[in-house]
């Protein structure tokens, strides 16, 4: 059943987000044409369009995932969804997997577009200059190029994981807003509950980081290790390495599991479709 749910959810989501990705490909194609024919104004316009489309991709995808969840679970389409012979956790898992797939795609599209814009405007010679600058970083006390690249990639993965948890937070507040007595807040409910939940989790996460320091260390030799030793984190940085804090990730993973369980329970036992 999970496979069938994912198949249908993917099709449904694709319809909601495909236009923005088509726009991105058109913008990339336009940039390619302007580059080939060296059309100056065209290059500028197509770059601006691609920048706007890349940012819109992630925003549109987030909005589409939230809208799709709300419509398919609590709108008229919910009359079909909730009469399927499928357990609530399976329904929820399918929706979440579909959302994180598309969010990951949009995230990748943003990076691709930004890289294309950079390469488009700076060309090969400036890319070599950037590489030279990166290679000179240790001379000014910053981590070396390969360390910086690894750290940036790890931070990008961290942000992506946080986005995946964010989706579950949104699913939870939308579900909560459809349960008595929380449904009394009406259409404002999901927004209100989101700020409360998000604020509370952010507060707890920051407090936890003060008490428990955990990080992924990128050593100067390029190796990776985990640590909860604040002194070690500082010494690795001093020695030309870098670190990515993990406390927030651990907390958010636990929160994600709890939110999933609570949301599934609410779907199974408490919702009333209007």
């Amino acid at each position, binding site marked *: 059943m999970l496979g069938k749910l994912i198949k249908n959810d993917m099709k*449904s989501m694709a319809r909601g987000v495909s236009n923005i990705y088509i726009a991105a490909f058109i913008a990339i194609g336009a940039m390619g044409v302007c580059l080939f024919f060296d059309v100056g104004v065209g290059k500028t316009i197509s770059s601006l369009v691609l920048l706007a489309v890349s940012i819109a991709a992630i925003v549109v995808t987030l909005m589409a995932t939230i809208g799709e969840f709300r419509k398919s679970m609590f709108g008229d389409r919910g009359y079909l969804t909730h*009469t399927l012979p499928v357990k609530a956790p399976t329904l929820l898992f399918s929706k979440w997997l579909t959302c994180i797939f598309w969010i990951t795609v949009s995230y990748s599209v943003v990076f691709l577009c930004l890289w294309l814009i950079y390469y488009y405007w700076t060309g090969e010679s400036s890319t070599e200059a950037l590489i030279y600058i990166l290679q000179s970083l240790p001379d000014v006390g910053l981590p070396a190029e390969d360390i910086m690249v690894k750290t940036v990639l790890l931070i990008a993965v961290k942000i992506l994981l946080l986005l995946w948890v964010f989706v579950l937070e949104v699913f939870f507040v939308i579900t909560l807003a459809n349960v008595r007595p929380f449904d009394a807040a009406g259409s404002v409910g999901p927004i209100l509950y989101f700020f409360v939940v998000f604020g509370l989790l952010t507060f707890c996460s920051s407090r936890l980081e003060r008490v428990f320091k955990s990080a992924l260390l990128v050593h100067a030799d390029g190796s990776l290790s985990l640590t909860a030793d604040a002194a070690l984190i500082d010494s690795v940085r001093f020695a030309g390495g870098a670190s990515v804090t993990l406390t927030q990730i651990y907390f958010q993973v636990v929160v994600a599991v709890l939110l999933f369980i609570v949301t599934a329970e609410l779907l199974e036992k408490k919702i009333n479709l209007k």
Partner: protein
Amino acid sequence: MPESIAAIEHVSKSYGKHLVLDDISFEVPAGKIVGLLGANGCGKTTLMKIITGLIHDYSGKVTIAGHRPGVYSKARVAFLSDRSYLADWFKTADAIDYFDDFFEDFDRPKAMELTERFGLDLNQRVKTMSKGMQEKVRLLLVMSRRAELYVMDEPLGGVDPAARSVILDIIMKNYSEKSTLLISTHQVHDLEQSFNHVIILGHGKVLLNSDIYEIHAQGMSVEEKYREVYGNAWEVD
């Protein structure tokens, strides 16, 4: 065949301060065509939503074929709602594929036969269909299932008299005779010839739960009995 397909035991449901179902209990007899009658707002749709698992927040106990509303019952209950629950972008073919994917009792050849009979285009999207066409799609999807219990919420509501006859004909000729039909309606006159059993709801209570023969034995039609029961219920108030 068991005597009852569904049992409603001491079920109460309120929306805020408005008590819609007040400690009602009854059984839906198996293998029969059961009319669920009552005025607007008396709780027919609420009761159907409880049976089909769309409402969980109620007190009491509901069982379908011995199981609480859940995966087991949903695999055996086909619900025809008045809501447009298909995605706008669905084509008729997509809707058939969807039901075929999730319901083991779905009869695809029958669905294709009904599609042709209704004159529907397999490649037409729901958003381009009229309300009547969308209703036909939903009806063919439900009637293509070999369910143990069909729950139909106002299947004749908002439909012209000619179409009512067609819909009724499709329902009566396509459901499995071993199955149970629970149909809510205001069009008592159109359906009373088809009912074996009648349940009348009013003011949160079950006002009547009777086999059709008992009503006829009193020399009354279902419509006359409905008026009598509802007339008395209004007087009580």
